[in-house]
């Protein structure tokens, strides 16, 4: 059974129809990268998977549980879906350790010792064991994003969502975060990643999904989709992304 199953998903913001019927699945231990031009609905799709955005139509089924059911225990379901945001969204009033323990303590009701132990292990996993007591304001963007990954991992999620995790980073800090994500993928974590990092998608993803205009245009293994796309829209997008200086402006 697929870990995530999305059926005929529609989402509008006012008159703006952002998602126009999305069907797709993510299997256990699969790494799926979602690419596409801005405004194509890829972030919205990701935010629908843990229902931060409420779709108007369609179903989001995670581990057999329909999150779009109004009587779904959404908070319980979200515990198993880790999310990493473009803007990190670390809690500024808590230290790195506090960021990684607050939900463990209050939601999972773990003891302080256990929560600390798990948080330390995850901060070490992202290479920040020396920043345990630092506050977000004292950390670089790359470090903050890695704390955010550790925070999500501390809840022992079955699935990790990444919403353009490197888009807000200075170029020289992108590598640190991508390295952590690559390690995570190698460890067998199921990951759904919205990204503009084509090299990462090509190297780490099991499958790449290209979205445009609120629909999935094309999907497949990275070598096929990035190396030899079938659809004209995909080709145009990839040309612009991979070789931006040799493309004439369209308008």
């Amino acid at each position: 059974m697929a870990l995530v199953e999305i059926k005929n998903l529609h989402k509008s913001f006012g008159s703006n129809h952002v998602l126009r019927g999305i069907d797709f699945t993510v299997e256990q231990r699969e790494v799926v990268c979602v690419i596409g031009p801005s405004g194509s609905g890829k972030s919205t799709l990701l935010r629908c998977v843990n229902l931060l955005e409420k779709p108007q139509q369609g179903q989001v089924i995670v581990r057999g549980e329909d999150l779009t059911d109004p009587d779904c225990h959404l908070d319980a379901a979200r515990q198993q879906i880790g999310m990493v945001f473009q803007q990190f969204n670390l809690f500024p009033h808590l230290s790195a350790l506090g960021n990684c323990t607050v939900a463990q303590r209050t939601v999972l009701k773990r003891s302080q010792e256990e929560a600390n132990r798990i948080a330390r292990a995850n901060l070490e996993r992202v290479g920040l064991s020396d920043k345990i007591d630092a506050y977000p304001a004292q950390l670089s963007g790359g470090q903050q994003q890695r704390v955010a990954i550790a925070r999500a991992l501390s809840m022992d999620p079955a699935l990790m969502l990444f919403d353009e995790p490197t888009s807000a980073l200075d170029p020289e800090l992108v590598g640190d975060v991508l390295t952590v994500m690559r390690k995570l993928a190698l460890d067998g974590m199921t990951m759904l990643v919205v990204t503009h990092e084509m090299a990462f998608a090509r190297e780490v993803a099991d499958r790449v999904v290209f979205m445009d205009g609120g629909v999935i245009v094309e999907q497949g293994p990275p070598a096929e989709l990035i190396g030899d796309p079938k659809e004209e829209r995909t080709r145009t997008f990839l040309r612009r992304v991979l070789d931006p200086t040799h493309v004439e402006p369209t308008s």
Partner: protein
Amino acid sequence: MSTSPQSTTETTVERKGLSPRRRAQRSRWIQYAILVVVVLVAVFTADWGQIGSVFFKPEFIKSAFEAGLLTALVKTLEYTAGAFVIGLVGGTILALMKLSPVGPYRWLATAYIEFFRGLPAIVVFIAFSLLPLAFEGMTIPWDPYGVVWLALGIVASAYMAEVIRAGIQAVPKGQVEAARSLGMPAGLAMRKIVLPQAFRIVLPPLTNDLILLVKDSSLVFIIGVAANGYELTGFGRDLANTDANLTPLVVAGFCYLVITLPLGLLVRRLEAKTARTR
């Protein structure tokens, strides 16, 4: 390079009147001159001996301390502190009501805030002074603290509610999203993530409210507390009446500054600190 005949670098532009710099200079001299004249008039016309003996008579300053100035200062602090706690708790509840998805809660909170914010505090105090007459046998516990804290707290909570609401709304939306994505229910996210940040944001304006509260505690005399319940204003007024001299009131007034000036300093420090961390 082009030597066009239009090049007019030789001619100088003639302008009439003083240059702006000279005009500013002259205006400043005039301002200083006015100041000097006013000070001289004050120095030579005022009866300094009389003023000194009415406002700053040393033996009355001494007797003010002996009559229990410090007790009155402590009372002012006690009245203010209790009212601040009520205002803070009430204000937080009202702010949460105002942001509630439940319509009637929002309406109630809005009505309360608009009513007590628009009302002079003195009206609330007069109402409280009349309560025992209107409802016979009615008593508010911890006399006189209970009634003072309640009257001041009711007004303070209306002010603070708006400040706290603004603080809650100033916390970025991503904070709630991050908390909810970790599985926190809305109430827990509010308590653990949003409110701690909101209070940090509103610390400077809340301290300002505290300063206002210190001064509003002077309205206690309207309620008519016993002499041993006098705070600074009541104490100063009473003693000034007895002595037929303004010195006790001036001394009491200085005591307010002893409280409010450090608080004002604290606000500026906090504001500077928030400005740095943003």
